[in-house]
């Protein structure tokens, strides 16, 4: 029983990271029907910004988190503006190939500047290094931070999307671009804003992973990116609560598979889940089955 709870706690930590990344995939897909392959590299760059802030500049965790989110926001907007906007009316495959190109560009540019070597986050000290024991269950400050920050960001996201004008514009554009334009909504601005939100969340995920696992490298985004994408599909691509749910489910499943001694198969299991969903429920857990998806 205690092992089960321990696994769930660990799963929530990992799942939070996947959920934060998955939100970006799902929002961008929702609004321009693009699987933004470069999204996982924004998460990677977020981890690097966090590293620079904490290791080189000696900033605390919270200012580093904000810096990382801000940098990724600007990066996301820039990528959309330069790489994707000119292809707004091109075929979907052209946009997809461009996204793969942007992804490789970000990975190898990072390698150029930061080398391909693994970097390690500074080891946590004081409050950040604390662990708490309840019986045999161990929970660390980092795990609490990850869970709490993720929940705060998700609540903020929900408030933005449901209550603010630009959030409503986002929903309107993702439902019907022409109709949104007829309301006087600026579609380009709204799409930029969507990239900004998704990228900020990815940046947060990057630094959270940095403090949790300590080591980062330029290709660190690839596998978590794929899994977060699976999470988004699992929950129903384009559906925000779906990405949150999918992230946690995938994270918890992965931890369970590893925790019960099948660590070698944990990636395989995640992709088996993807294949299973695509066969059984292609629209995802929270999606309506309407035929065309992904």
């Amino acid at each position: 029983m205690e092992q089960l709870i321990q696994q769930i706690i660990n799963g929530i930590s990992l799942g939070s990271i996947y959920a934060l990344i998955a939100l970006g995939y799902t929002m961008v897909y929702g609004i321009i029907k693009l699987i933004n392959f470069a999204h996982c590299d924004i998460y990677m760059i977020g981890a690097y910004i966090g590293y620079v802030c904490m290791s080189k500049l000696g900033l605390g965790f919270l200012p580093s988190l904000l810096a990382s989110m801000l940098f990724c926001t600007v990066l996301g907007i820039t990528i959309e503006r330069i790489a994707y906007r000119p292809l707004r009316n091109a075929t979907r495959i052209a946009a997809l190939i461009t996204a793969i190109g942007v992804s490789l560009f970000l990975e190898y540019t990072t390698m150029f500047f930061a080398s391909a070597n693994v970097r390690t986050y500074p080891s946590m000290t004081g409050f950040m290094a604390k662990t708490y024991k309840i019986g045999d269950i161990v929970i660390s400050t980092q795990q609490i931070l990850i869970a709490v920050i993720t929940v705060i960001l998700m609540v903020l996201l929900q408030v933005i999307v449901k209550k603010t004008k630009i959030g409503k514009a986002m929903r309107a554009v993702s439902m019907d671009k022409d109709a949104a334009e007829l309301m006087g909504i600026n579609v380009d601005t709204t799409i930029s804003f969507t990239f900004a939100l998704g990228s900020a969340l990815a940046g947060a995920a990057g630094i959270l992973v940095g403090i949790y696992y300590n080591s980062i490298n330029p290709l660190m985004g690839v596998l978590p990116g794929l899994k977060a994408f699976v999470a988004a599909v699992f929950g129903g691509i384009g559906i925000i609560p779906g990405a949150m749910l999918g992230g946690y489910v995938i994270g918890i499943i992965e931890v369970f598979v590893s925790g019960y001694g099948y660590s070698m198969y944990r990636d395989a299991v995640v992709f088996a889940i993807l294949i299973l969903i695509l066969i059984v429920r292609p629209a995802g857990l929270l999606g309506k089955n309407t035929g065309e998806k992904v």
Partner: protein
Amino acid sequence: MLEINNLNVHFGVIHALKGISLTVNDGEIVTLIGANGAGKTTTLRTISGLKKPTSGDIILNGENITGMSAQQRVNKGISHAPEGRRVFPAMTVLENLEMGAYLRKDKPEIARDLKMVYDLFPVLSDRQKQPAGTLSGGEQQMLAIGRALMSRPKILLLDEPSMGLAPLLVQEIFNIIRGVNKAGTTVLLVEQNAMMALQIAHRAYVMETGSIVLHGTGEELLQSDQVKKAYLGG
């Protein structure tokens, strides 16, 4: 109010509008009728800025708006209830109506217009909290018109508001269009239901394969042999 001069629109090699000109005067209901594929929807989409013309001018109250974005045109007083309703299905009725007032900041006036729309369509008031996708076709059409009114337009563009509705509902929708016009909004109405449209229109244009082939008062066109034969079933 609205003047279109020699408008040409292409979709790739398809010449969809072949130099059409038309005028809508202040306070009028003008209808544009014609068979499927004639170019009626394209005309409205070009007026509201969703489609860029190849050449020609669109003049609103003396100002050339041809180069303006859709957003600017909403600000200038053009509102367009598109073909097929196009309500935001996952948003509630109230949210849809709020989207109609997206560019406005005058909260008390927006509240007043919301009440006006609810008075016009009481069924929408009953269903405020319901997702628009769950409404019936007729209710969605009412919502599309209500949403278009929420920008407090000078001119309302309506694209086939009677499409797919039961005859009783069609009558109701047309009564409402007439009411909206009486209350001061100029209307450009695209319809395949020529009979109904000509009955409420002050003036009418008939379109065939991208050109305007006939125009006159609603009454004149109702009597015209050409229109009778082609659009009124004899």
